[in-house]
């Protein structure tokens, strides 16, 4: 059965800390890996990763995919309270189905 596993399940940090969120996957027909931020109901897109070893960066967020290890990490540096959210990892398979992990709940304390 295809699955995406995220760790940790939840995390509490202080403003200014750096966090690393993990995602590992076991899917039959891997196409790409996506990270989303979910604050209320709708997830918002962060990154799409298709190639191993190439870091994608957006401001204080960055992510990289390791196809050999079947995993990805999402880094957030200099965290702010506005970074508090659920971070979702999803793997897109051929056929366009997205398989989501359960998410990591991040809480940034001021």
């Amino acid at each position: 059965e295809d699955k995406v596993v995220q760790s940790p399940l939840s995390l509490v940090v202080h403003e200014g800390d750096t966090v690393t969120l993990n995602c590992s996957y076991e899917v039959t027909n891997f196409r790409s890996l996506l990270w989303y931020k979910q604050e209320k109901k709708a997830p918002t897109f962060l990154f799409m990763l298709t190639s191993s070893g190439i870091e994608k960066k957006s401001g204080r967020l960055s992510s990289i995919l390791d196809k050999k290890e079947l995993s990805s990490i999402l880094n957030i540096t200099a965290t702010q309270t506005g970074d508090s959210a659920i971070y979702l990892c999803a793997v897109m398979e051929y056929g366009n189905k997205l398989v989501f992990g359960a998410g990591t709940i991040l809480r940034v304390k001021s």
Partner: protein
Amino acid sequence: GAGVSQSPSNKVTEKGKDVELRCDPISGHTALYWYRQSLGQGLEFLIYFQGNSAPDKSGLPSDRFSAERTGGSVSTLTIQRTQQEDSAVYLCASSPDSLGTDTQYFGPGTRLTVL
């Protein structure tokens, strides 16, 4: 520009009733997806449309669930004879193409509560 919209935003219904959830994708997006997120669980894929056809219905949890898409645009997800375990947030997403090369953009969701 306008994003994906869904209606209603909240729906409370009694067990056994039928409900219809609506999704308006971003104009011009070919692919449309339905997901649901139950309390404390991750997002679960339900069905995907390419144009008006649904190549993958594998995620529909039972035959009480059905979906259609007309004119390559609006989609409705229908749940018949609702059960309490159907309570969840139902999310719709669309993407520009059906090749899996573009990300999916999500709507705000419909929170369904079955009493």
